[in-house]
């Protein structure tokens, strides 16, 4: 031990190395704790600006595909309007953003940096505080959910993707109201895992999974994916379900940001005394 200490004191290079390594280790650990990674994120002026200008070029490569997605969505919305309340997807909370009496306010944004290859994926969008985007707003596309905003700067915001092992989202079966939490094991960008579904739930392959009403971030009933396979846990009480996402997370461009106007009220109700 004495020798090690002597060695470190004698050697300024090793000392610097240890210092810098400790700093980066600290930053890493901080980034593993939800809502703490304040300094190191891509939603700042410099990286946001660079990503935006790079995206200005690369977005042209997927224009055709994005157009198809938009037309498809228009088609769904048109069908909904023409068929009145008979439509199958009235529960999807694509609430009219013009009416301010609604519970949700919807804004659009564009993804300027998309990651899905690591185990901790984040996305960057081109809207920030100056467009009234704040932390804990939900991000969805016309097909399903994308993630939750976890850091904002003036002009940009960072989204904690559902393809992040830190992400935990309340979800339920569409057919019944059994809720569970949606996580990701870091393996495939097409499959996420829904855990803690009670063994009494009627789980069948191909069933749809939607967001649950328990969180104040997403409205109830936003589509997530469909059941690919499921196993009963070792304890025998809950199912772990592999969910195939509706969204192609590798090809995202236009997204909607959902603000729940009642969040404050809900939070106040839930923690009435402390804080």
């Amino acid at each position, binding site marked *: 031990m004495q020798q090690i200490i002597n060695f470190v004191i004698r050697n300024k*290079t090793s000392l610097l190395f240890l210092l810098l390594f400790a700093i980066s280790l600290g930053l890493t650990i901080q980034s593993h704790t939800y809502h703490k990674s304040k300094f190191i994120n891509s939603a700042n002026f410099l990286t946001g600006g660079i990503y935006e200008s790079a995206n200005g070029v690369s977005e042209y490569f997927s224009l055709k595909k994005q157009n198809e997605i938009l037309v498809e969505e228009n088609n769904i919305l048109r069908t909904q309007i023409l068929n009145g309340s008979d439509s199958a997807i009235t529960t999807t909370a694509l609430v009219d953003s013009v009416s301010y009496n609604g519970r949700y306010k919807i804004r659009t944004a564009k993804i300027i940096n998309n990651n899905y290859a690591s185990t901790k994926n984040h996305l960057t969008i081109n809207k920030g505080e100056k467009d009234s985007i704040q932390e804990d707003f939900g991000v969805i596309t016309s097909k399903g959910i994308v993630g939750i905003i976890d850091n904002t700067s003036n002009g940009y915001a960072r989204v904690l993707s559902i393809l992040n092992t830190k992400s935990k989202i309340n979800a339920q079966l569409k057919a019944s109201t059994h809720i569970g939490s949606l996580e990701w094991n870091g393996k495939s960008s097409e499959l996420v895992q829904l855990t803690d579904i009670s063994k009494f739930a009627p789980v069948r392959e191909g069933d749809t999974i939607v967001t649950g009403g328990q969180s104040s971030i997403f409205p109830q009933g936003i589509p997530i994916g469909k059941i690919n396979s499921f196993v009963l846990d070792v304890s025998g009480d809950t199912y772990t379900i592999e969910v195939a996402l509706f969204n192609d997370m590798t090809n995202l461009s236009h997204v909607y940001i959902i603000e729940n106007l009642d969040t404050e009220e809900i939070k106040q109700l839930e923690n009435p005394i402390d804080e």
Partner: protein
Amino acid sequence: MNSVNLNSILRFVVLILAQALVFNHINFMGSINPYPYILFIILFPVNNNRTLFIFLSFMLGLFLDIFSDSGGVHAAACVTVAFIRPAVLKFAFGMIYEHQSIKFNNTEFGNRVIYFSILIVIHHLTMFLLEIFNMSNIILVFQKTLFSSIFTLTLCVLISVLFSNKQQ
């Protein structure tokens, strides 16, 4: 001397931008990405101030962390690689390094590949260990390290061959 500094600064900026905008989005076979930005550390002039070198490597990693939202993962890996580089140099090049007169363009190809691969594997292993940060996924760490290392090594050798200015 001045052109060496200029060259290093240029490399620093270009490699960060190339990594952030191009190489981070390759996603070969779904999730394999190369990290050729560590060429900056690999090819940094040898007879130089070590303290400065370690600090620059830290900054390189930190910038990349900001771009790819990864906390301090790249910074930690870069600092580690920068710190152990002299030992690896000695191992890979032997006598030439002892004379402090090494020029990467003039070294033998085999030695250079050994030197590259040791540094790349150490860098990737540190990085993925910290990124995944979970001992139960250790297989995933090794798997990612292996595949990414092969990819990075290929790219690094190609880039260093392409951009080497042969001035015999």
